């Protein structure tokens, strides 16, 4: 279905590449930094309302079962228990295409079966074990490859493997037949768990028919929408708040079942209800990056890549969508013949949630491994081979021009920085006897152009300070700070004079903080709101100062005319509480132009064949994402993306017990998020050329790009150093040792 977005007014001209900006583009410490280093910053976990009750969720111990009966009488009899919800007493509450939050057929270990509200979390927890559920246990399958097997239990009547997307250009079959070299590989990636340090959770409180929900979320408006659908309330009766939040990485894209549980209990009991997941629940029932099985065939002829065929299967749990891994195969390289075919595979495990560049991280690993294998087969340097297909300014999928593409610049910068010329076939000697050293690289493609709708208001106070209101949220990326920068720049005031009010659905709408959408979606709206405010200020100043409007500008908190500076406060001095309210909305993206981000990562690794340990020594990350609004937060994004990718590449892996369907790695000792001691040197470079076609700020998104190519670069470096290619992430000591044993 086509979606419409209404926009009004005219856009501002984009800041030119050579525009002199005093705040945008300079490092700015975070506007909320003091609150975070003093412990004052309040997270959903920290919300303490008087009389709060605590809800805990009973989860299925079976990977698949029918809930025949729930007996909550013993739980209700426990002192301090205030209510129990389950499928036989809960009103229909629509949730992500299903009618209720408590399924008749539970589909994974951890699926919601019932919930308890009690005076304390401990009482609620104790009550869970008193609920008696009659389950009819059904046959299950949790492993991706077993689920694909036709002999396995069918979870859906249509089967476990569902077609998701098929794309073809050119004639792949013909080119494979005509090729000089054809390589083929089967690649596997493991389920990655988000593990935001703040687990999912919500606190709900009603005041009459007004519902307020505090939620750790990447989309306050999405939570509002979910509550409207579940509870059939007018939007005006719902307010969702998220002041600070402890990470989401895609998993906090909207309402959770816990949100509905909290809201229902709060309404029924008439008290605030807090429902916060623990770490174990977070890792069984709050989403994940799908495990994938991918087959890539690549053909080369006369020194060029002539065809790529990429087929993928993703373990989505029960989700109705798939994070398609074949995106990079379709769009990254200018290759004439491409066949991409993605499948969604149902299993009895927790469903996927978007995880930072969903699909692209997994797909880039398979694609870029295959490109390296092809380059080896063709006897060509893998970077040289990529260069031949990276220069085109036309998107091979849509055949439209890119607004800006500097991928080859990324190659140049990265190759120089890592010392690519040292790379040798078969790798290099390590720093100690027995160790092997390798270099690898991979490219990145992602969107990041942003989108309407997004709206902002800027109130200019009589003293020359300003308040920006926009219904976005800062998920840790520095959104507040870039908003303040763009507002201050446009308005001509100090960044410290800007207060940023976000995380509230009573503010103007802004999109989800995901998909690298935020900066490119909201800062153009903020800029227009600030411009509107500035122009109104100049109207006022023109009258007050009796100077022609055209002779005035705002600079450093003052209205400046030829030779004279009048502080904004002075302009307003006699106007009492006259308030300028500027309004801005995100304009549509240009027609017939494709907005993408590009980048390349280069990795240098050392592998110990005796222990299977892979040590990443250095990653050079180069990105082409338009204008960098704040180099400090931008570097944080890149470093964070690289390190998360290293976790995916080397250590992070959900392990599910096949016979019982239980997640064995639901804690942070068994699930291996990188520690500070696992982190290599990371060199961050930006092309930093504003994309003046994209939007009036010239910036594109940077959330996703840095997590996309790092794992592939590391895998290529390991293959280079070791002389053995391991096509299964993460490259744990176990996989490395098993691969070496198999190779010898």
């Amino acid at each position, binding site marked *: 279905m086509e979606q419409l977005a209404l926009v009004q007014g005219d856009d501002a001209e984009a800041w030119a590449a050579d525009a002199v900006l005093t705040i945008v583009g300079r490092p700015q410490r975070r506007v909320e930094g003091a609150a975070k280093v003093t412990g004052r910053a309040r997270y959903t976990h920290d919300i303490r309302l008087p009389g709060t009750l605590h809800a805990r969720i009973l989860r299925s111990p079976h990977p698949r079962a029918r809930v025949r009966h729930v007996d909550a009488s013993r739980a209700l009899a426990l002192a301090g228990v205030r209510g129990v919800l389950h499928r036989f007493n809960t009103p229909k509450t629509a949730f992500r295409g299903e009618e209720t939050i408590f399924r008749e057929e539970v589909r994974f270990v951890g699926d919601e079966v019932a919930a308890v509200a009690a005076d304390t979390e401990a009482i609620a927890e104790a009550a869970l074990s008193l609920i008696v559920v009659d389950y009819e246990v059904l046959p299950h399958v949790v492993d991706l490859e077993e689920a694909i097997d036709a002999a396995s239990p069918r979870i859906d009547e249509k089967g476990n493997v569902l077609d998701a997307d098929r794309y073809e250009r050119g004639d792949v079959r013909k080119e494979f037949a005509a090729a000089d070299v054809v390589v083929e590989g089967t690649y596997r990636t493991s389920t990655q768990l988000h593990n935001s340090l703040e687990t999912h959770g919500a606190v709900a409180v009603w005041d009459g028919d007004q519902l307020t929900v505090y939620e750790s979320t990447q989309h306050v408006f999405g939570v509002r929408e979910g509550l409207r659908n579940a509870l059939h309330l007018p939007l005006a009766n719902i307010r969702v708040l998220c002041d600070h939040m402890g990470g989401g990485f895609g998993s906090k894209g909207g309402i959770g079942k816990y949100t509905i549980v909290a809201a229902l209990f709060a309404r029924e009991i008439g008290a605030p209800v807090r429902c916060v997941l623990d770490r174990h629940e977070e890792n069984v029932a709050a989403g994940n990056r799908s495990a994938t099985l991918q087959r890539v065939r690549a053909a080369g002829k006369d020194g060029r890549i002539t065809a790529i065929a990429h087929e993928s299967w993703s373990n989505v749990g029960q989700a109705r969508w798939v994070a398609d891994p074949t995106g990079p195969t379709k769009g990254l390289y200018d290759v004439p013949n491409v066949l991409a075919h993605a499948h969604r595979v149902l299993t009895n495990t927790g469903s996927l949630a978007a995880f930072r560049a969903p699909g692209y991280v997994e797909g880039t690993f398979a694609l870029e491994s295959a490109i390296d294998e092809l380059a080896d087969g063709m006897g060509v340097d893998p970077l040289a081979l990529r260069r031949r297909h990276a220069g085109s300014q036309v998107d091979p999928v849509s055949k439209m021009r890119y607004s800006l593409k500097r991928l080859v610049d990324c190659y140049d910068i990265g190759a120089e920085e890592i010392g690519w010329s040292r790379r040798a076939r078969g790798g290099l000697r390590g720093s100690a006897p027995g160790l092997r050293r390798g270099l690898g690289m991979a490219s990145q493609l992602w969107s990041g152009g942003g989108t309407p709708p997004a709206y902002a208001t800027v109130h200019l106070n009589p003293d020359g300070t300003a308040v920006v209101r926009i219904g976005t949220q800062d998920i840790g990326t520095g959104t507040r700070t870039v908003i303040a920068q763009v507002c201050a720049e446009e308005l001509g005031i100090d960044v410290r004079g800007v207060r940023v009010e976000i995380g509230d659905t009573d503010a103007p709408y802004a999109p989800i903080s995901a998909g690298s959408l935020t900066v490119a979606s909201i800062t153009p709206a903020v800029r227009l709101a600030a411009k509107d405010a500035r122009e109104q200020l100049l109207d006022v100043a023109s009258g007050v100062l009796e100077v022609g409007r055209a002779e005035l500008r705002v600079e450093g908190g003052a209205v400046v005319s030829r030779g004279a500076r009048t502080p904004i406060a002075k302009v307003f001095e006699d106007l009492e509480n006259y308030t300028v309210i500027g309004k801005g909305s995100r304009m549509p993206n240009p027609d017939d132009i494709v907005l993408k981000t590009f980048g390349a990562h280069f990795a240098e690794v050392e592998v110990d064949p005796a222990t299977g340990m892979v040590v990443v020594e250095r990653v050079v990350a180069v990105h082409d994402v338009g204008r960098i609004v704040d180099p400090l937060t931008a570097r944080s994004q890149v470093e964070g993306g690289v390190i998360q990718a290293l976790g995916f590449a080397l250590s992070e892996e959900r392990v599910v017990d096949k016979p019982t369907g239980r997640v064995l790695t639901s804690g942070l000792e068994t699930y291996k998020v990188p520690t*500070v001691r696992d982190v290599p040197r990371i060199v961050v470079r930006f092309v930093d050329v504003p994309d003046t076609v994209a939007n009036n700020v010239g910036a594109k998104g940077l959330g996703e790009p840095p997590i996309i190519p790092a794992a592939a670069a590391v895998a290529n470096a390991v293959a280079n150093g070791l002389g053995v290619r391991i096509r299964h992430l993460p490259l744990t000591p*176990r996989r490395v040792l098993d691969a070496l044993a198999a190779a010898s």
Partner: protein
Amino acid sequence: MKSFEYTRPTSVQEAVQLLSAQNARALGGGTDLLGIMKDALLPTDRVVDLKGIQGLDHIKDDAGTLAIGALARLGDIASSSLVSQKAPALAQAAGLVASPQIRNMGTLGGNLAQKVRCWYFRDADRTDCYKRNGSYCYAVLGASDLHAVFGGAACFAVHPSDTATALSALDASVVVAGPKGQRTVPIASFFVGPDTDYLRETVLAPDEIITEVRVPPGALGAPSVFLKAAPRRSIDFARTSVGAQVVGTNVIQTARIALGAVAPTPHRATKAEAFLEGKSLAADTIAQAAELAADGAKPLASNAYKVPLIKGLVRQALTALAAR
């Protein structure tokens, strides 16, 4: 957590008396016990906080023997110059346990007496696991990445302690106090495997505590080393570790090689040890000893990687000793 009685005795006698009650458990640093209680893995009705007992946190030279109190913190052992000098493998092992916070909190006694980290045992809902008084081992047909390649029987959980591995190589002994007084147990017989009793990992009776660990003069000062392989450089338990010590200059009189996280108890690579005696640490000798160290390993479905890992680590450990 379920309700429990908290007690804080001030003497060993009082402690063991308090521990004689049903489901009483000793509390040292708490980094293991609190997890067990939160997940209700083992019934706990009484917590006996040993930290009120004075004089159990010493690290001292006791007439030539290195004597370390059970309440000595792992962090203090790691940074002790006495330990680093006399028993480097122990200092290294203590310094590689978990995280700085856990080393600040965790005690040597607790590190030796901890429960296994098997991901089936630690799953609150697996009430039928052998170690929870059940009669099933999920690792046999399940995911056995963490599990034993030596000595498993019914239960295949490995002993997770890094210091136990080092102390096994150092020929230490463990002083145990109980209602009938003290006894000293050689480290080689301190740990018990599932063939003896799958409900416990050590010889400790429920009302016994470790009071001291002693490293004999003969093992002190001789080169020793501890190496640990784990997916991450911090927080993790070992996937395989090795503690090694050679006594004798030029020609090895005694070699002790203890392997951690590969068996229900610290596993002595006795064939490799015997092979080394009377030899010097030449490269080919080391290589042969490393091969012998994995002799007899019987991997489960997903832990065959531990066999080359054992060989690799032993080779590196002996190479490090040869360089001393």
